[in-house]
Protein backbone atom coordinates (compact mmCIF):
# COMPACT_ATOMS: atom_id res chain seq x y z
CA UNK A 1 0.00 0.00 0.00
CA UNK A 2 1.17 3.36 -0.80
CA UNK A 3 1.35 5.47 2.24
CA UNK A 4 -1.50 7.87 2.16
CA UNK A 5 -1.10 11.32 3.60
CA UNK A 6 -4.51 12.44 4.73
CA UNK A 7 -5.13 16.10 5.39
CA UNK A 8 -7.98 17.70 7.16
CA UNK A 9 -10.18 20.26 5.37
CA UNK A 10 -8.73 22.95 7.50
CA UNK A 11 -5.24 22.00 6.58
CA UNK A 12 -6.03 22.13 2.89
CA UNK A 13 -7.71 25.47 3.15
CA UNK A 14 -4.86 26.87 5.20
CA UNK A 15 -2.41 25.55 2.63
CA UNK A 16 -4.26 27.09 -0.27
CA UNK A 17 -4.62 30.31 1.62
CA UNK A 18 -0.87 30.31 2.14
CA UNK A 19 -0.29 29.74 -1.55
CA UNK A 20 -2.55 32.61 -2.49
CA UNK A 21 -1.08 35.00 0.02
CA UNK A 22 2.45 34.24 -1.00
CA UNK A 23 1.75 34.95 -4.62
CA UNK A 24 3.50 38.15 -5.66
CA UNK A 25 0.78 39.23 -8.01
CA UNK A 26 -2.17 38.26 -5.86
CA UNK A 27 -1.00 39.84 -2.64
CA UNK A 28 -1.26 43.35 -4.00
CA UNK A 29 -3.45 43.75 -7.00
CA UNK A 30 -5.57 46.37 -8.74
CA UNK A 31 -8.83 45.10 -10.20
CA UNK A 32 -11.49 46.94 -12.14
CA UNK A 33 -15.08 45.78 -12.12
CA UNK A 34 -18.69 46.58 -11.41
CA UNK A 35 -20.13 46.23 -7.95
CA UNK A 36 -23.13 43.98 -7.37
CA UNK A 37 -24.76 42.14 -4.47
CA UNK A 38 -23.51 44.82 -2.12
CA UNK A 39 -24.22 44.21 1.55
CA UNK A 40 -23.11 46.33 4.47
CA UNK A 41 -22.90 44.29 7.64
CA UNK A 42 -23.76 45.87 10.96
CA UNK A 43 -20.09 45.56 11.87
CA UNK A 44 -19.35 47.97 9.03
CA UNK A 45 -17.70 45.37 6.80
CA UNK A 46 -18.83 45.60 3.22
CA UNK A 47 -19.47 42.45 1.16
CA UNK A 48 -19.96 42.61 -2.58
CA UNK A 49 -19.30 40.90 -5.87
CA UNK A 50 -17.01 42.45 -8.40
CA UNK A 51 -17.86 41.45 -11.92
CA UNK A 52 -17.26 42.12 -15.55
CA UNK A 53 -19.25 40.89 -18.53
CA UNK A 54 -18.24 37.25 -18.16
CA UNK A 55 -16.87 36.72 -14.66
CA UNK A 56 -17.30 37.52 -10.99
CA UNK A 57 -15.25 37.48 -7.80
CA UNK A 58 -16.38 37.87 -4.20
CA UNK A 59 -14.98 40.85 -2.41
CA UNK A 60 -14.90 42.15 1.11
CA UNK A 61 -13.90 45.52 2.49
CA UNK A 62 -13.35 45.66 6.20
CA UNK A 63 -14.90 48.47 8.18
CA UNK A 64 -11.53 49.93 9.03
CA UNK A 65 -10.95 50.60 5.34
CA UNK A 66 -14.52 51.43 4.51
CA UNK A 67 -14.53 54.19 7.11
CA UNK A 68 -11.71 55.98 5.33
CA UNK A 69 -13.67 56.37 2.12
CA UNK A 70 -15.27 59.78 1.48
CA UNK A 71 -18.06 58.19 -0.56
CA UNK A 72 -20.07 55.02 -0.38
CA UNK A 73 -19.93 51.97 -2.62
CA UNK A 74 -23.07 51.23 -4.54
CA UNK A 75 -24.35 48.48 -6.75
CA UNK A 76 -23.61 49.12 -10.40
CA UNK A 77 -20.70 51.35 -9.58
CA UNK A 78 -17.67 50.95 -11.81
CA UNK A 79 -14.69 50.80 -9.45
CA UNK A 80 -10.99 50.17 -9.41
CA UNK A 81 -10.06 48.42 -6.21
CA UNK A 82 -6.75 47.55 -4.64
CA UNK A 83 -6.27 44.64 -2.27
CA UNK A 84 -5.16 41.05 -2.05
CA UNK A 85 -6.67 37.70 -2.86
CA UNK A 86 -7.06 35.19 -0.08
CA UNK A 87 -9.15 32.31 1.03
CA UNK A 88 -11.87 32.35 3.63
CA UNK A 89 -11.08 29.09 5.34
CA UNK A 90 -14.50 28.62 6.86
CA UNK A 91 -16.18 28.31 3.47
CA UNK A 92 -13.21 27.53 1.29
CA UNK A 93 -14.03 30.46 -0.94
CA UNK A 94 -11.40 32.74 -2.18
CA UNK A 95 -12.16 36.41 -2.28
CA UNK A 96 -10.72 39.77 -2.91
CA UNK A 97 -9.86 41.65 0.28
CA UNK A 98 -10.31 45.30 -0.76
CA UNK A 99 -8.32 48.03 0.91
CA UNK A 100 -8.90 50.88 -1.49
CA UNK A 101 -11.84 51.41 -3.83
CA UNK A 102 -11.82 54.26 -6.26
CA UNK A 103 -14.55 55.17 -8.66
CA UNK A 104 -13.42 54.52 -12.24
CA UNK A 105 -13.72 57.67 -14.30
CA UNK A 106 -14.88 60.37 -11.86
CA UNK A 107 -12.84 61.34 -8.79
CA UNK A 108 -13.97 59.91 -5.51
CA UNK A 109 -14.73 63.35 -4.09
CA UNK A 110 -17.09 64.16 -6.89
CA UNK A 111 -18.74 60.78 -6.44
CA UNK A 112 -19.05 61.47 -2.74
CA UNK A 113 -20.49 64.89 -3.55
CA UNK A 114 -23.08 63.44 -5.89
CA UNK A 115 -23.97 60.72 -3.43
CA UNK A 116 -24.46 63.04 -0.49
CA UNK A 117 -26.32 65.50 -2.64
CA UNK A 118 -28.70 62.82 -3.79
CA UNK A 119 -29.15 61.43 -0.30
CA UNK A 120 -29.91 64.77 1.31
CA UNK A 121 -32.13 65.76 -1.54
CA UNK A 122 -34.16 62.60 -1.06
CA UNK A 123 -34.40 63.39 2.64
CA UNK A 124 -35.76 66.81 1.78
CA UNK A 125 -32.95 68.90 3.19
CA UNK A 126 -32.86 71.08 0.11
CA UNK A 127 -36.62 71.63 -0.07
CA UNK A 128 -37.76 75.19 -0.62
CA UNK A 129 -40.29 74.69 2.15
CA UNK A 130 -37.50 74.60 4.70
CA UNK A 131 -35.79 77.77 3.46
CA UNK A 132 -36.23 80.56 5.92
CA UNK A 133 -36.37 84.19 4.81
CA UNK A 134 -33.29 86.31 5.40
CA UNK A 135 -33.92 89.30 7.66
CA UNK A 136 -34.19 92.52 5.66
CA UNK A 137 -32.93 94.73 8.45
CA UNK A 138 -30.80 92.54 10.71
CA UNK A 139 -29.37 93.93 13.92
CA UNK A 140 -26.49 91.48 13.95
CA UNK A 141 -24.95 89.24 11.32
CA UNK A 142 -22.70 86.35 12.34
CA UNK A 143 -19.82 85.32 10.11
CA UNK A 144 -18.60 81.76 10.51
CA UNK A 145 -15.23 81.58 8.81
CA UNK A 146 -11.51 81.81 9.42
CA UNK A 147 -10.78 84.95 11.48
CA UNK A 148 -7.69 85.59 9.39
CA UNK A 149 -9.04 84.83 5.93
CA UNK A 150 -10.11 87.14 3.14
CA UNK A 151 -13.76 86.23 3.58
CA UNK A 152 -14.14 87.84 7.00
CA UNK A 153 -12.52 91.06 5.80
CA UNK A 154 -14.71 91.17 2.71
CA UNK A 155 -17.85 90.76 4.78
CA UNK A 156 -16.79 93.37 7.33
CA UNK A 157 -15.85 95.88 4.63
CA UNK A 158 -19.02 95.48 2.65
CA UNK A 159 -21.19 95.79 5.76
CA UNK A 160 -19.24 98.79 6.99
CA UNK A 161 -19.88 100.68 3.76
CA UNK A 162 -23.34 99.41 3.14
CA UNK A 163 -24.92 98.98 6.56
CA UNK A 164 -22.84 100.37 9.41
CA UNK A 165 -25.86 99.95 11.68
CA UNK A 166 -25.53 96.18 11.45
CA UNK A 167 -23.40 94.55 14.11
CA UNK A 168 -20.92 91.92 12.89
CA UNK A 169 -20.21 88.88 15.05
CA UNK A 170 -17.21 86.86 13.95
CA UNK A 171 -17.40 83.17 14.87
CA UNK A 172 -13.93 81.77 14.21
CA UNK A 173 -13.81 78.33 12.60
CA UNK A 174 -11.39 76.15 10.69
CA UNK A 175 -12.48 76.15 7.08
CA UNK A 176 -10.17 73.55 5.58
CA UNK A 177 -8.26 70.44 6.53
CA UNK A 178 -8.79 68.04 9.36
CA UNK A 179 -11.26 69.06 12.01
CA UNK A 180 -12.73 71.80 9.84
CA UNK A 181 -16.16 70.18 9.59
CA UNK A 182 -16.37 69.71 13.36
CA UNK A 183 -15.21 73.27 13.92
CA UNK A 184 -17.89 74.61 11.58
CA UNK A 185 -20.55 72.45 13.22
CA UNK A 186 -19.69 73.73 16.68
CA UNK A 187 -19.60 77.36 15.51
CA UNK A 188 -23.06 76.89 14.04
CA UNK A 189 -24.40 75.42 17.23
CA UNK A 190 -22.70 78.10 19.38
CA UNK A 191 -24.14 81.06 17.53
CA UNK A 192 -27.56 79.43 17.53
CA UNK A 193 -27.31 78.77 21.24
CA UNK A 194 -26.23 82.34 21.94
CA UNK A 195 -29.13 83.69 19.90
CA UNK A 196 -27.14 86.85 19.23
CA UNK A 197 -27.44 86.99 15.45
CA UNK A 198 -30.31 87.42 13.01
CA UNK A 199 -28.44 85.96 10.05
CA UNK A 200 -25.43 83.68 9.64
CA UNK A 201 -22.94 83.96 6.80
CA UNK A 202 -21.03 80.68 6.49
CA UNK A 203 -18.16 80.57 4.09
CA UNK A 204 -14.60 80.98 3.00
CA UNK A 205 -12.61 82.21 0.03
CA UNK A 206 -11.81 80.16 -3.02
CA UNK A 207 -9.74 76.97 -3.10
CA UNK A 208 -9.46 73.49 -4.55
CA UNK A 209 -12.20 70.93 -4.16
CA UNK A 210 -10.21 69.40 -1.32
CA UNK A 211 -9.93 72.81 0.37
CA UNK A 212 -13.66 73.34 0.12
CA UNK A 213 -14.41 69.79 1.18
CA UNK A 214 -15.62 70.52 4.74
CA UNK A 215 -18.57 72.34 3.16
CA UNK A 216 -19.49 69.09 1.40
CA UNK A 217 -19.56 67.01 4.53
CA UNK A 218 -22.75 65.54 5.80
CA UNK A 219 -22.43 66.81 9.37
CA UNK A 220 -21.98 70.36 8.16
CA UNK A 221 -25.01 70.00 5.92
CA UNK A 222 -27.08 68.69 8.83
CA UNK A 223 -25.88 71.45 11.15
CA UNK A 224 -26.89 74.07 8.58
CA UNK A 225 -30.26 72.42 8.24
CA UNK A 226 -30.66 72.38 12.02
CA UNK A 227 -29.71 76.04 12.44
CA UNK A 228 -32.59 78.15 13.66
CA UNK A 229 -30.90 81.28 12.45
CA UNK A 230 -31.12 81.56 8.65
CA UNK A 231 -27.85 80.69 6.94
CA UNK A 232 -26.36 82.26 3.83
CA UNK A 233 -23.64 80.08 2.33
CA UNK A 234 -20.71 81.78 0.64
CA UNK A 235 -18.11 79.22 -0.27
CA UNK A 236 -15.34 79.90 -2.73
CA UNK A 237 -16.01 81.52 -6.05
CA UNK A 238 -19.11 81.87 -8.10
CA UNK A 239 -18.53 78.57 -9.94
CA UNK A 240 -18.03 76.53 -6.78
CA UNK A 241 -21.06 74.67 -5.60
CA UNK A 242 -21.02 72.83 -2.28
CA UNK A 243 -23.55 70.77 -0.38
CA UNK A 244 -23.67 73.65 2.09
CA UNK A 245 -25.00 75.83 -0.74
CA UNK A 246 -27.88 73.46 -1.33
CA UNK A 247 -28.88 73.20 2.33
CA UNK A 248 -28.40 76.88 3.17
CA UNK A 249 -31.39 79.17 3.18
CA UNK A 250 -29.68 81.28 0.58
CA UNK A 251 -26.59 80.77 -1.55
CA UNK A 252 -24.28 83.65 -2.21
CA UNK A 253 -21.68 83.33 -4.97
CA UNK A 254 -18.98 84.93 -2.77
CA UNK A 255 -18.59 86.19 0.81
CA UNK A 256 -18.89 89.80 -0.41
CA UNK A 257 -22.14 88.97 -2.14
CA UNK A 258 -23.33 87.29 1.06
CA UNK A 259 -22.74 90.51 2.98
CA UNK A 260 -24.88 92.34 0.45
CA UNK A 261 -27.64 89.75 0.62
CA UNK A 262 -27.56 89.91 4.42
CA UNK A 263 -28.11 93.66 4.67
CA UNK A 264 -30.12 96.53 3.34
CA UNK A 265 -28.20 99.35 1.72
CA UNK A 266 -28.09 102.27 4.14
CA UNK A 267 -28.45 104.89 1.39
CA UNK A 268 -31.35 103.03 -0.09
CA UNK A 269 -32.90 102.80 3.35
CA UNK A 270 -32.62 106.54 3.77
CA UNK A 271 -34.30 107.05 0.44
CA UNK A 272 -36.95 104.57 1.49
CA UNK A 273 -37.64 106.35 4.75
CA UNK A 274 -37.83 109.68 2.96
CA UNK A 275 -40.13 108.23 0.39
CA UNK A 276 -42.34 106.89 3.16
CA UNK A 277 -42.42 110.29 4.81
CA UNK A 278 -43.48 111.81 1.50
CA UNK A 279 -46.20 109.26 1.11
CA UNK A 280 -47.37 110.09 4.64
CA UNK A 281 -47.54 113.76 3.76
CA UNK A 282 -49.34 113.15 0.50
CA UNK A 283 -51.94 110.89 2.01
CA UNK A 284 -52.65 113.08 5.02
CA UNK A 285 -52.96 116.05 2.66
CA UNK A 286 -55.42 114.30 0.43
CA UNK A 287 -57.30 113.06 3.50
CA UNK A 288 -57.63 116.56 4.85
CA UNK A 289 -58.61 117.93 1.47
CA UNK A 290 -61.19 115.24 1.13
CA UNK A 291 -62.63 115.97 4.58
CA UNK A 292 -62.74 119.64 3.74
CA UNK A 293 -64.59 118.97 0.52
CA UNK A 294 -66.96 116.70 2.31
CA UNK A 295 -67.83 119.32 4.88
CA UNK A 296 -68.20 121.93 2.15
CA UNK A 297 -70.49 119.80 0.11
CA UNK A 298 -72.42 118.95 3.22
CA UNK A 299 -73.16 122.54 4.10
CA UNK A 300 -73.17 123.87 0.61
CA UNK A 301 -70.33 126.11 -0.34
CA UNK A 302 -72.35 129.36 -0.13
CA UNK A 303 -73.79 128.62 3.23
CA UNK A 304 -70.41 127.66 4.42
CA UNK A 305 -68.81 130.77 3.05
CA UNK A 306 -71.44 132.92 4.67
CA UNK A 307 -71.02 130.92 7.81
CA UNK A 308 -67.32 131.44 7.63
CA UNK A 309 -67.74 135.15 7.10
CA UNK A 310 -70.18 135.32 9.90
CA UNK A 311 -67.99 133.37 12.14
CA UNK A 312 -65.12 135.63 11.27
CA UNK A 313 -67.24 138.69 11.87
CA UNK A 314 -68.57 137.28 15.05
CA UNK A 315 -65.14 136.65 16.23
CA UNK A 316 -64.04 140.19 15.54
CA UNK A 317 -67.16 141.46 17.15
CA UNK A 318 -66.69 139.21 20.06
CA UNK A 319 -63.18 140.42 20.58
CA UNK A 320 -64.24 143.99 20.43
CA UNK A 321 -67.13 143.40 22.76
CA UNK A 322 -65.03 141.62 25.14
CA UNK A 323 -62.51 144.40 25.30
CA UNK A 324 -65.25 146.93 25.70
CA UNK A 325 -66.90 144.89 28.33
CA UNK A 326 -63.71 144.52 30.18
CA UNK A 327 -62.98 148.17 29.95
CA UNK A 328 -66.41 149.14 31.07
CA UNK A 329 -66.37 146.76 33.95
CA UNK A 330 -63.06 148.13 34.93
CA UNK A 331 -64.29 151.64 34.65
CA UNK A 332 -67.39 150.87 36.57
CA UNK A 333 -65.50 149.28 39.33
CA UNK A 334 -63.08 152.13 39.39
CA UNK A 335 -65.87 154.66 39.40
CA UNK A 336 -67.68 152.84 42.09
CA UNK A 337 -64.57 152.69 44.12
CA UNK A 338 -63.80 156.32 43.59
CA UNK A 339 -67.33 157.28 44.43
CA UNK A 340 -67.19 155.22 47.51
CA UNK A 341 -63.97 156.88 48.58
CA UNK A 342 -65.35 160.30 47.89
CA UNK A 343 -68.54 159.54 49.71
CA UNK A 344 -66.86 158.21 52.72
CA UNK A 345 -64.60 161.26 52.75
CA UNK A 346 -67.56 163.53 52.45
CA UNK A 347 -69.49 161.56 54.99
CA UNK A 348 -66.58 161.86 57.31
CA UNK A 349 -66.46 165.58 56.82
CA UNK A 350 -70.20 165.99 57.20
CA UNK A 351 -70.50 163.95 60.29
CA UNK A 352 -71.50 166.48 62.92
CA UNK A 353 -69.71 164.68 65.66
CA UNK A 354 -66.43 164.87 63.72
CA UNK A 355 -66.93 168.59 63.32
CA UNK A 356 -67.65 169.06 66.97
CA UNK A 357 -64.59 167.04 67.82
CA UNK A 358 -62.44 169.67 66.18
CA UNK A 359 -63.79 172.40 68.50
CA UNK A 360 -66.85 173.61 66.57
CA UNK A 361 -70.35 173.83 67.97
CA UNK A 362 -73.88 173.42 66.57
CA UNK A 363 -76.77 175.73 67.39
CA UNK A 364 -80.39 174.62 67.83
CA UNK A 365 -83.43 176.85 68.32
CA UNK A 366 -86.06 176.36 71.01
CA UNK A 367 -87.84 173.85 68.73
CA UNK A 368 -84.71 171.74 68.44
CA UNK A 369 -84.10 172.62 64.76
CA UNK A 370 -80.64 173.37 63.60
CA UNK A 371 -79.94 177.04 63.25
CA UNK A 372 -78.22 177.50 59.92
CA UNK A 373 -77.37 181.21 60.28
CA UNK A 374 -77.76 184.40 62.25
CA UNK A 375 -80.61 185.47 59.94
CA UNK A 376 -82.73 182.65 61.42
CA UNK A 377 -82.58 184.10 64.90
CA UNK A 378 -84.08 187.07 66.63
CA UNK A 379 -82.81 189.02 69.61
CA UNK A 380 -83.55 187.28 72.94
CA UNK A 381 -84.24 183.94 71.25
CA UNK A 382 -83.32 181.02 73.45
CA UNK A 383 -80.79 178.72 71.81
CA UNK A 384 -79.03 175.49 72.67
CA UNK A 385 -75.36 175.28 71.73
CA UNK A 386 -74.04 171.77 71.29
CA UNK A 387 -70.38 171.09 71.90
CA UNK A 388 -68.70 167.74 71.48
CA UNK A 389 -68.50 167.28 75.20
CA UNK A 390 -71.88 168.78 76.16
CA UNK A 391 -74.66 171.41 75.67
CA UNK A 392 -75.17 174.98 76.89
CA UNK A 393 -78.30 177.15 76.78
CA UNK A 394 -78.02 180.86 75.88
CA UNK A 395 -80.01 183.95 74.85
CA UNK A 396 -79.28 185.92 71.65
CA UNK A 397 -78.09 189.45 72.51
CA UNK A 398 -76.91 190.81 69.17
CA UNK A 399 -76.84 189.66 65.49
CA UNK A 400 -74.93 190.60 62.38
CA UNK A 401 -74.48 189.11 58.88
CA UNK A 402 -71.51 187.66 57.02
CA UNK A 403 -71.38 186.63 53.36
CA UNK A 404 -71.90 182.90 52.87
CA UNK A 405 -68.32 181.92 51.97
CA UNK A 406 -67.30 181.03 55.44
CA UNK A 407 -70.07 178.53 55.62
CA UNK A 408 -68.70 176.58 52.68
CA UNK A 409 -65.56 175.92 54.58
CA UNK A 410 -67.54 174.10 57.09
Amino acid at each position, binding site marked *: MIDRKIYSVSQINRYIRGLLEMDVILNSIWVRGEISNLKVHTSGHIYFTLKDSSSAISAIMFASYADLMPYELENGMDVIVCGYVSLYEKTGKYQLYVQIAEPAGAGELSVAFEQLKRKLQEEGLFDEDYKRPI*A*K*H*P*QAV*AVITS*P*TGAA*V*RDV*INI*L*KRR*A*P*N*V*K*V*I*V*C*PALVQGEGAADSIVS*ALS*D*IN*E*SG*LADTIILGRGGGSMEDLWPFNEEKVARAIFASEIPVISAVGHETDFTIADFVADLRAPTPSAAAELASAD*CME*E*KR*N*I*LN*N*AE*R*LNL*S*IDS*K*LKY*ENERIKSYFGIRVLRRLEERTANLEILNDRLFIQLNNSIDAQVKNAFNRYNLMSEKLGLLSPLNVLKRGYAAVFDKNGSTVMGSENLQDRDLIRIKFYTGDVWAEVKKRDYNNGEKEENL
Partner: protein
Amino acid sequence: MAKKKKTYEEAAERLEEIVEKLENSDVSLEESINLYKEGMELTLLCRQKLDAARQEVDELKKNFDGSFSLKPFNTDLEEEEQ
Protein backbone atom coordinates in the same frame (compact mmCIF):
# COMPACT_ATOMS: atom_id res chain seq x y z
CA MET B 1 -46.14 104.89 20.89
CA ALA B 2 -42.70 105.28 22.35
CA LYS B 3 -43.40 102.74 25.06
CA LYS B 4 -40.19 100.87 24.37
CA LYS B 5 -37.06 101.42 22.36
CA LYS B 6 -37.74 100.12 18.88
CA THR B 7 -35.10 98.46 16.77
CA TYR B 8 -34.54 99.91 13.34
CA GLU B 9 -36.21 96.93 11.77
CA GLU B 10 -39.30 97.28 13.94
CA ALA B 11 -39.49 100.99 13.30
CA ALA B 12 -39.03 100.64 9.53
CA GLU B 13 -41.60 97.88 9.33
CA ARG B 14 -44.11 99.81 11.42
CA LEU B 15 -43.56 102.85 9.20
CA GLU B 16 -44.24 100.78 6.11
CA GLU B 17 -47.38 99.48 7.74
CA ILE B 18 -48.57 102.97 8.63
CA VAL B 19 -47.97 104.31 5.13
CA GLU B 20 -50.00 101.50 3.66
CA LYS B 21 -52.76 101.96 6.22
CA LEU B 22 -52.90 105.68 5.66
CA GLU B 23 -53.04 105.27 1.91
CA ASN B 24 -56.03 103.04 2.39
CA SER B 25 -59.08 105.29 2.52
CA ASP B 26 -60.94 103.26 5.12
CA VAL B 27 -59.28 104.98 8.05
CA SER B 28 -61.10 107.72 9.89
CA LEU B 29 -59.73 111.24 9.90
CA GLU B 30 -58.87 111.07 13.56
CA GLU B 31 -57.02 107.79 13.15
CA SER B 32 -55.31 109.20 10.07
CA ILE B 33 -53.94 112.08 12.06
CA ASN B 34 -52.71 109.74 14.79
CA LEU B 35 -51.10 107.47 12.20
CA TYR B 36 -49.52 110.45 10.51
CA LYS B 37 -48.04 111.62 13.78
CA GLU B 38 -46.71 108.17 14.61
CA GLY B 39 -45.33 107.80 11.09
CA MET B 40 -43.49 111.09 11.28
CA GLU B 41 -42.00 110.15 14.63
CA LEU B 42 -40.86 106.83 13.18
CA THR B 43 -39.35 108.60 10.18
CA LEU B 44 -37.30 110.69 12.53
CA LEU B 45 -36.29 107.68 14.61
CA CYS B 46 -35.19 105.73 11.52
CA ARG B 47 -33.19 108.62 10.15
CA GLN B 48 -31.49 109.08 13.49
CA LYS B 49 -30.65 105.40 13.71
CA LEU B 50 -29.22 105.35 10.19
CA ASP B 51 -27.25 108.53 10.66
CA ALA B 52 -25.86 107.59 14.06
CA ALA B 53 -24.68 104.14 12.98
CA ARG B 54 -21.07 103.15 13.51
CA GLN B 55 -19.98 99.64 12.68
CA GLU B 56 -19.34 97.29 15.56
CA VAL B 57 -17.40 94.07 14.98
CA ASP B 58 -17.25 91.51 17.78
CA GLU B 59 -16.01 88.00 18.18
CA LEU B 60 -18.17 85.31 19.76
CA LYS B 61 -16.52 83.68 22.77
CA LYS B 62 -17.84 80.69 24.60
CA ASN B 63 -17.16 80.90 28.32
CA PHE B 64 -16.26 77.98 30.54
CA ASP B 65 -19.72 77.94 32.06
CA GLY B 66 -21.24 77.56 28.60
CA SER B 67 -22.45 81.13 28.38
CA PHE B 68 -21.43 83.44 25.56
CA SER B 69 -19.82 86.83 25.44
CA LEU B 70 -18.75 89.24 22.73
CA LYS B 71 -15.28 90.72 22.54
CA PRO B 72 -14.21 93.41 20.10
CA PHE B 73 -12.77 91.85 16.97
CA ASN B 74 -9.67 93.69 15.88
CA THR B 75 -9.93 93.94 12.13
CA ASP B 76 -6.79 96.05 11.66
CA LEU B 77 -4.65 93.51 13.45
CA GLU B 78 -5.93 90.76 11.24
CA GLU B 79 -5.02 92.76 8.17
CA GLU B 80 -1.47 93.18 9.40
CA GLU B 81 -1.16 89.49 9.96
CA GLN B 82 -1.98 88.74 6.39
